[in-house]
């Protein structure tokens, strides 16, 4: 499981499954939390699992059940959930050049979450083209099933798990930023990208601390993009004689 180009010995599908395993450290605790929150908001276990299976979009699911349980108008519930998911619009075009002409690709975009996109953006270009569909299917399906299983576990026994091992609930979610860090780090290969990435990370952190985590994601990315274009057009400083 390297970020360079390892020779693939197992089938592409299994390699995808194996490489998506680090995602589970972040997925499962959050999915368990969602299952727990959904049941506490009055949804049944099956309804929570159905939401995770169908919508499958992390943070926005918390907003969906929270607003629905609070009695918000359903058009507003749908609108807010879709607004949070709007960032997904830029993911698939970034991967399109690395995809074959298979008709399966559009349907498989159901599994294109933040984490799967980050992993695929790094790994797809490194794989032989005939292995990419298998690799992506394995990685995306593992992540999807883990999300569904985690939701079910949270809805059934989440409260018991959190009470028994409180530290586990605190520690495991760090797997997600750790994984993102590993996926973002290789992109900081030149000054321009390093500036834009660091500004984006700091802006995202500041916005999250300010209580605007969801809207903070596109806002932070736009701040980083502004930095990216500013660095490009910045005038070169004249040397003092």
């Amino acid at each position, binding site marked *: 499981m390297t970020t360079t180009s390892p020779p693939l010995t197992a089938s592409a599908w299994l390699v995808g499954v194996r490489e998506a395993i680090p995602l589970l450290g972040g997925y499962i605790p959050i999915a368990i939390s969602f299952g727990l929150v959904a049941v506490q908001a009055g949804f049944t276990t099956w309804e929570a699992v159905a939401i995770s299976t169908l919508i499958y979009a992390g943070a926005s699911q918390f907003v969906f059940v929270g607003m629905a349980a609070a009695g918000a108008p359903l058009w507003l519930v749908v609108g807010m959930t879709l607004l949070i998911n709007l960032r997904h619009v830029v993911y698939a*075009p970034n991967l399109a050049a690395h995809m074959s002409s298979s008709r399966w690709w559009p349907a498989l975009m159901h599994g294109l979450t933040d984490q799967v996109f980050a992993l695929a953006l790094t790994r797809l270009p490194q794989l032989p083209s005939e292995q990419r569909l298998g690799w992506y299917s394995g990685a995306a399906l593992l992540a999807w099933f883990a999300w569904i299983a985690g939701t079910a576990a949270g809805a059934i026994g989440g409260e018991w798990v959190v009470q028994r091992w409180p530290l586990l609930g605190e520690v495991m979610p*760090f797997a997600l930023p750790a994984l993102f860090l590993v996926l973002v780090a290789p992109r900081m290969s030149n000054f321009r990208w390093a500036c834009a990435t660091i500004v984006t990370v700091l802006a995202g952190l500041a916005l999250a601390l300010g209580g605007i985590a969801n809207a903070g994601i*596109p806002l932070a990315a736009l701040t980083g*993009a502004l930095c990216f274009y500013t660095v490009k057009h910045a005038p070169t400083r004249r040397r003092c004689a």
Partner: protein
Amino acid sequence: MSMELWLAVAATTVGTLLMRMLPLIWMRKRLSRSSAEAGVDTLPQWLSVLGPLMIAAVLGVSLAPSQNTLAGWTATLLGVLATLITWRRTRSLGWPVAVGVAAYGATLLLSGL
């Protein structure tokens, strides 16, 4: 769950899927057109910039400690450092995440949460 709520789930499901799927179909058409014209850079630059930066933004948001305490910030900082150092040494995906989580957890444990 009422029928209205099921409809809301269905609308959100379809909307989210379309947001993930339609840009791919658009981009594939763009790619097939440009390959016919040969040599044109097909991905708009703003998209190739925003894609990776969205991930950096999710990283920034997810770095905010769940507990805004000295222990929470110290654990986050040490977890980040451990992850980066392990990544520089191994250039792999799995080990840096495991070491980062272990460093984060050990700091929280030693600080008594």
